[in-house]
């Protein structure tokens, strides 16, 4: 079926302005407005949103995939020589040029600033545009990533230190999964950390003791799934999962769909489009997405679409 036909065949999608969304993403692809400069360090993440958005909208043919591949690969961190390997640095991808410096002879302050989240985005982009990930020099990447794992199983995002929480456990798991190689992390330890993040109400917080949150819950459940600790379609098979409390998680997640049809990230907080992904994703992984009230959610999402004058 032609793309246009696909989008017009479902009457509920008729108010989804696909062309305008593509146009918007292409505009961002060409140039991000100045207010985004505060996000400079995460430029690769912004690129990921644009590219995966175009992919979902089946409009990836509108961008130059070779250019994307070359740009992303240019952000990969490489050691200057063997001596820098001993300092425990992480050799992943930079999120932007602002953490990537050309080598010079001064030495002392030149730290490789590649970051776990940027590495996840880099690989996700490459995979999306069809690059063969086996071409990536992944041995050093994975080996140095393991050094970012903490004794409690969590991950630091950069070797110079940083907040450790479930987001980076997810990045690590996704990286290993995409590269098809689990040498980059100790899965058992990561699993222990995730289990400790499940709150008394069934959702997961970013760190043990934190309030359960949609984004953190996605990171937890997606990581467990990628690492092989959750069976496919848990609910329909009535399989039991003993490491986390699945019934409580399920109840918490579904309760996050509010009366306006959208999803909340936390109890008693306003709904937001992003949680349709985070919490929706959790439910999908559990095989419980059929319990989402789809028409209510679609109704909510269409209120979030910018008004366009016709």
């Amino acid at each position: 079926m032609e793309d246009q036909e696909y989008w017009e065949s479902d009457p509920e999608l008729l108010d989804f302005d696909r062309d305008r969304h593509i146009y918007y993403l292409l505009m961002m692809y060409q140039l991000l407005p100045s207010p985004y400069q505060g996000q400079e360090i995460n430029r690769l993440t912004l690129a990921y949103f644009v590219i995966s958005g175009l992919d979902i909208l089946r409009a990836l043919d509108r961008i130059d995939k070779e250019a994307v591949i070359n740009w992303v690969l240019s952000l990969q961190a490489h050691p200057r020589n063997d001596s820098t390997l001993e300092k425990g640095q992480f050799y992943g991808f930079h999120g932007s040029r602002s953490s990537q410096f050309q080598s010079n002879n001064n030495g002392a302050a030149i730290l490789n600033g590649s970051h776990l989240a940027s590495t996840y985005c880099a690989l996700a982009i490459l995979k999306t545009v069809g690059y063969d990930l086996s071409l990536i020099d992944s041995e050093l990447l994975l080996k140095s990533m393991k050094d970012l794992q903490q004794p409690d199983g969590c991950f630091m995002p950069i070797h110079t230190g940083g907040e450790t929480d479930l987001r980076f456990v997810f990045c690590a798991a996704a990286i290993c999964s995409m590269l098809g190689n689990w040498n980059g992390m100790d899965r058992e330890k990561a699993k222990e950390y995730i289990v400790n993040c499940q709150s008394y109400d069934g959702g997961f917080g970013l760190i043990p003791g934190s309030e359960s949150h949609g984004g953190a819950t996605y990171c937890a459940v997606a990581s467990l799934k990628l690492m092989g600790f959750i069976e496919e379609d848990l609910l329909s098979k009535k399989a039991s999962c003993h490491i986390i409390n699945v019934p409580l998680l399920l109840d918490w997640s579904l309760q996050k769909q509010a009366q306006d049809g959208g999803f909340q990230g936390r109890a008693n907080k306003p709904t937001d489009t992003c949680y349709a992904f985070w919490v929706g994703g959790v439910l999908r992984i559990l095989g419980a997405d059929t319990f989402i009230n789809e028409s209510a959610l679609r109704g909510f999402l269409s209120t979030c679409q910018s008004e366009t004058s016709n």
Partner: protein
Amino acid sequence: MNRGVEEERARIPMSQRPEWADIRPVPQYDGPNPVVPIAYTDEFSETMDYFRAVYLADERSPRALQLTKEAIFLNSGNYTVWQFRRLILDALNVDLHEELHFVDQITKDNSKNYQIWRWVAEKLGTQIASKELEFTREIFSQDAKNYHAWSHRQWVLQALGGWENELAYCDELLEDDIFNNSAWNQRYFVVTRSPLLGGLEVMRDSEVAFAIKAILAKPENESPWRYLHGLYKNDVNSLVNDPRVASVCLDVLLDKRDCVHALNMVLDLLSHHHQPSNELKDAVDAVSPDPKPSDSNFAERVCSILQLVDPIRASYWRWRKTSIPAQD
């Protein structure tokens, strides 16, 4: 960080500042075909070009310190700048109390830099515990659910202490807003982890009473229901056997107010072999809209009623029917 247009106009470009005359700024090299380029303002480009210069020269001077401050105002998430600033602070032996003040200021506007906070806090030691608790309290007075501030507050308590008034603080927040789920979570944190309180089992009785009071005030509030359930974590039989739990469900149902959470709790009790009183059964049936479901099995009937009173989750309640353990 938001800066007024006037401030930007008042800014003297670095190329015109005599104290920077000796530095050649280093432009960003983005490669031949950059993707998602950002339309940097002149101020941003120039500041970062000068930052690159001092960074590559590894200049750990007072002017470099000031430059990192300007760069941070423009891009507070840039961990390379923060990292270099740390090196300069160490090299210059700067008073870290001042640094804490700076970090607090940045964090007020941008919530993502608690790691930097920790570095400073760890260096200053336990003396700053109360200051940091006070600072997060100020943040909560504007935004009582700020997630990163709550993580930070929990870290401060565990690393630096200051538990004495934390339960009372939770009381305060919940009095302001009984729906504040962050405050409920913090309460659970204190009750289970405070070295001054004796742990969950010791606290359970009074906390059950607290939760029940909150439920009766606003039965549509998800938080105290979850909290109540959480007080019996890993000991669901005690939940089922605590008569106060079935009792609060009954009270809410009799009052005929929003009862979805009450019905869900009843269903949970039944799933763990609770034997419902006739009073409870009658109260459940009474809240059902017409046409009243006719399932002979009480637990199944509860599911049917939930489908009617909580239609957005109708398919879930229908599924719950299929997973009820066999009743006597």
